[in-house]
């Protein structure tokens, strides 16, 4: 159950931040920072509201996934893809390597990876686009080999 809550938190945070960023025109930094601050303070003031695991992890997942919502509407404007990206972020967070634990920027790196994966998704899932994604990959691999 805790895992499902964290997966949902990731998707919700990304969508919420994107909404504040683009629709409410608050800009990427303020939308991510204010929402993270509110969630952080909430769990700081009410540490016993949820289990210790969720109280520790929800603010971190929310902050990390909010970095996805900082994306420009020029790059991505589909709420479903942004939510999917937040979901992927949570999956990466739950399986993150202990090697990079405590490294500042780790959440942002996971957010960037999630966003790139979500951007790449339509090229392999959309109808008639399967060959497009495959062709891009093939072009990249074989061009290097030839040269």
């Amino acid at each position, binding site marked *: 159950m805790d895992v499902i809550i964290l997966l949902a938190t990731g998707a919700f945070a990304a969508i919420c931040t994107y909404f504040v960023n683009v629709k409410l025109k*608050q*800009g*990427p*930094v*303020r939308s*991510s*920072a*204010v929402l*993270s*601050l*509110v*969630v*952080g*303070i909430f769990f*700081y003031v009410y540490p016993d509201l949820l289990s210790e695991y969720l109280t520790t992890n929800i*603010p*971190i997942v*929310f*902050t990390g996934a909010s*970095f*996805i*919502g*900082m*994306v*420009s509407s020029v*790059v991505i404007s589909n709420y479903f893809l942004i939510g999917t990206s937040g979901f*992927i972020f949570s999956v*990466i967070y739950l*399986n*993150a*390597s*202990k*090697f*990079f*634990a*405590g*490294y*500042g*920027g*780790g*959440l*942002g*790196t*996971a*957010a*960037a*990876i*999630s*966003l*790139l*994966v979500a*951007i*790449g*998704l339509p*090229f*392999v899932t959309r109808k008639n686009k399967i060959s497009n*994604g495959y062709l*891009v*990959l093939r072009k*990249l691999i074989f061009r290097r080999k030839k040269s």
Partner: protein
Amino acid sequence: MMKQIVKKLPFLLLVLLHVLFLLAVLLEKLNFISILIFVVAALMLMVIAYTKVPTQDNTLLYKDYGAIVFVVLGAGLAYYINVNAGFGPVIATGAVGTFASMLPWLNRNSALLKEAPAAAYCGSFVGMSSPNVAGNMLFILFAGFVAGVLLVFSKNIFQGYGGKLGTIAFGGVALTYLIMFLFLR
């Protein structure tokens, strides 16, 4: 030729950081087939996405270098709130980011203050580091400086991509850790 390589270096560095981060997940969980499939699929989709990342050709101006100061300040302040004041990384980065997002209101015509929110927020990610990694404020300030330099030189890539600032902060912390490991052991 040399100019081309220097131009592509920040892009390659950010890509390397993404790949290293995913490979660390993979190496730790090699026994889990589902994680293996997830990481390989993620890497393939990332490669496709990288080909779609546009690059701009704006020249670096003096005001861009001013961003380094905001990154260092953001890193120091966030680390202080995070560790010294004991509020933790989330409140630290949220507070610094919220404060920094208001800086352009001081002077709407200032090009330097326009850069401040993103730069300080990038620095705040450096300040989210755990004391087990960072050790002291000096490490954070130096990592902030490295991240600031990376931020300036990656001006023309990944514009508008969420997670760019975090990747740069991660690069700053990882490079500083590497430098300390190699030279100050």
